[in-house]
């Protein structure tokens, strides 16, 4: 195995093969962050909707989760990239923007909405795991339902779901690789490029694997720090 190929220049000359990999890494991180922000925002709202008294709202959020959980991510991605621009009014304008932007936007939207369904379930589980008396106590004090959610339920639920959210964060990064299928040059796609151009398959895949492991480790460290900050003293799982 020859690892020096990483430092040879690419055919077009502007960077080394390692540079290509790092570009892929950058795109992976950017895509994952964009999708994760969307997923957290939308997922939290949906998770709340699944626990409120209104039956219509609960059903809507429930339907959302069922749809996005029962269709493979790849199919969803292709629908976003190939179908949505065709059937949504104004979609033809989408097809005229820069190709990379098309791929990135479709990927971010797809990954974001897909992950939102999973975040929704975590938020719901978090809220439902709180003792029923919490909500009643808040309401008895005269707080409105929105206030109850804002000041009592959500803060506690948020702390409880940090561990499962860690694995969701990791999932977002892993799922971003699926977007290589529509041509987005994220890390896995760049790995494949490397194999194509250098014919050094083992080294290329080793490098890509190592980079994913590094991202993994970084996320786990980060989330551990978040988790220790978020611990509620005296509650299960807290050290105090």
């Amino acid at each position, binding site marked *: 195995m020859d690892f020096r190929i990483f430092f040879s220049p690419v055919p077009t000359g502007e960077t080394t093969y390692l540079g290509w990999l790092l570009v892929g890494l950058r795109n992976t991180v950017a895509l994952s962050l964009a999708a994760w922000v969307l997923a957290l925002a939308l997922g939290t709202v949906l998770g709340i909707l699944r626990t409120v008294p209104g039956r219509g709202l609960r059903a809507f959020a429930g339907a959302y989760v*069922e*749809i996005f*959980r*029962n*269709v*493979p*991510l*790849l*199919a*969803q991605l*292709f*629908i976003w990239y*190939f*179908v949505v621009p*065709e*059937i949504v*009014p104004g979609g033809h304008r989408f097809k005229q923007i820069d190709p990379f932007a098309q791929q990135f936007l479709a990927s971010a939207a797809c990954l974001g909405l897909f992950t939102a369904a999973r975040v929704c379930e975590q938020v719901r589980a978090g809220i439902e795991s709180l003792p029923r008396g919490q909500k009643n106590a808040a309401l008895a004090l005269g707080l409105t339902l929105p206030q109850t959610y804002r000041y009592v339920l959500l803060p506690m639920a948020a702390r409880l779901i940090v561990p499962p959210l860690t694995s969701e964060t*990791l999932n977002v990064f*892993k*799922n*971003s*690789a*699926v977007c*290589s*299928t529509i041509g987005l040059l994220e890390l*896995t796609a760049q*790995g*494949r490029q490397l*194999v*194509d*151009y250098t*014919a050094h*398959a*083992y080294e290329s*895949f080793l490098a*890509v*694997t190592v980079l*994913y*492991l590094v991202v*993994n480790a970084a996320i786990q460290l980060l989330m551990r720090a978040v988790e220790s900050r978020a611990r509620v003293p005296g509650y299960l799982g807290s050290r105090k």
Partner: protein
Amino acid sequence: MYELDWSSIPGALPFLWQGMKVSLAITAVAVVAGIAWGTVLAVMRLSPARPVSLFAAAYVSLFRSVPLVMVLLWFFLIVPSLLRDVLGLSHATDLRLASAMVAFALFEAAYYSEIMRAGIQSVSKGQRSAALALGMTPLQAMWHVVLPQAFRNMVPLLLTQAIILFQDTSLVYVSALADFFGAAVYVSALADFFGAAYKVGDRDGRLVEMLLFAGAAYFVLCCTASWAVRLLRRRVLA
């Protein structure tokens, strides 16, 4: 405004069915092999022998840290040529299906191993003590007493993971991207249900309809399967 035209779907059904058979075949093999290998890994993980448990932990960690897409590409790019060299074969398509099954089994085993490990730990320690007290070896105790109970406790999770696996089989699509640079002969991609839908849609110029159809088909299948698992959980296992 795009005009939706569903007329190409009935004609495409036989081809789609071929693809579905591939999806189901990969799912079936990967579930069975994945649970078997995953159970072995879980038992290894709980072994008192350090090298054994470390290996299992490393394996599970590795496969759970990388994307399935990457593992599949790795398998499609490297394993067929490796196997060809080792076994002296030449028929590429067969190896692709086998490579896909092996890749899925090895990958999913990491996830199944975590489920089984939780299952094993959910069986009360007294059961193992009672088995040992009767003179069973630790392996006998695991096989006759702990694993049957662990398995039964985890059936809903094992089935849910199988549904996820079924959805993941759509990723064999990447075998189309795995044609080795410089390969002399163009080999058609291994087509599962999704891949078949894409191919037909692309060929007939009805990609939009085919993708929507495929999405709807997956939705109906997986929704039904999940509902069946919930029913099973309530009626039989409660």
